[in-house]
């Protein structure tokens, strides 16, 4: 069974860009990931106490569980967690959408069909995970797990039901079998998706503010993940 985990970034109203970013793998990759990630939470950085959860925004801001951490310590942990994603051979994809451009250009029935900017990114989460599954997954069933976000659960379930329905009518070789909205405290892969969503959101914002001139991410961690993992964003 393939599993695709997604986290959102930029979902607050004043954000210029919004996205749902996913991490994809098979059951063996996820089993390996969970073992390594849990061990890293127990021993996150030299001299630091175990973490209940990795959360990229808290880690970057050195608040929450990371209160008092130095930049060296937070960078070390992010690098180590990036290594886990690379070692497990996971793939990532996310569709970042400019809210203003979407609101200007997508109206009427097209907007009802495709949703608002976040809704469209949510639809693309299913599309891209299914495409990855067909092209590279090597298995015939896929489960979708999203970080809990009450405002989007109904929409996410409706989209899943439609993909599931159409897969029954015309098989593409991959069957969507389930969708869930879960808590990243309990579901470790959602913490990995959170890390990628944060990185991709930051790059998408850079890209937008540079009028498209920023062709590559400025952050070294995202560059490293892009080189080593099947990471895609757009």
């Amino acid at each position, binding site marked *: 069974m393939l599993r695709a985990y997604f986290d959102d970034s930029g979902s607050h109203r004043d954000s210029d860009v919004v996205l749902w970013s996913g991490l994809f793998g098979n059951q063996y990759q996820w089993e390996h990931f969970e073992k390594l990630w849990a061990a890293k939470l127990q021993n996150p950085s030299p001299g630091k106490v175990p973490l209940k959860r990795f959360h990229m925004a808290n880690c970057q801001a050195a608040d929450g569980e990371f209160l008092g951490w130095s930049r060296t310590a937070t960078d070390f942990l992010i690098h180590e967690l990036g290594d886990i994603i690379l070692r497990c051979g996971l793939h990532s994809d996310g569709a970042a*959408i400019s809210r203003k451009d979407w609101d200007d*250009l*997508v109206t009427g029935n097209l907007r*009802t*069909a495709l949703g608002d900017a976040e809704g469209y990114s949510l639809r693309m989460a299913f599309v891209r995970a299914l495409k990855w599954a067909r092209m590279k997954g090597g298995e015939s069933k896929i489960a979708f797990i999203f970080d809990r976000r009450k405002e989007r659960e109904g929409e996410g379930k*409706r989209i899943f039901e439609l993909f599931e*329905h159409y897969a029954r*009518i015309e098989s593409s070789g991959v069957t969507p079998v389930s969708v869930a909205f879960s808590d990243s405290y309990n579901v470790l892969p959602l913490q990995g998706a959170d890390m990628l969503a944060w990185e991709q959101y930051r790059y998408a914002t850079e890209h937008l503010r540079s009028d*498209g001139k920023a062709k590559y991410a400025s952050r070294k961690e995202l560059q490293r993940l892009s080189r080593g993992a099947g990471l895609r964003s757009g």
Partner: protein
Amino acid sequence: MRSAIEKMVALEIGNEEKIAAAASLMLSDAPIKVADEITPTSR
């Protein structure tokens, strides 16, 4: 990003019926029933 959205919107010109059907899927309380009605091959 804007040009990608512009291209996508331009590609949908002429597909108004299909778009209206897709919109009805999103608004219906019974989307699968609507999907069956607008996709004859599903019967």
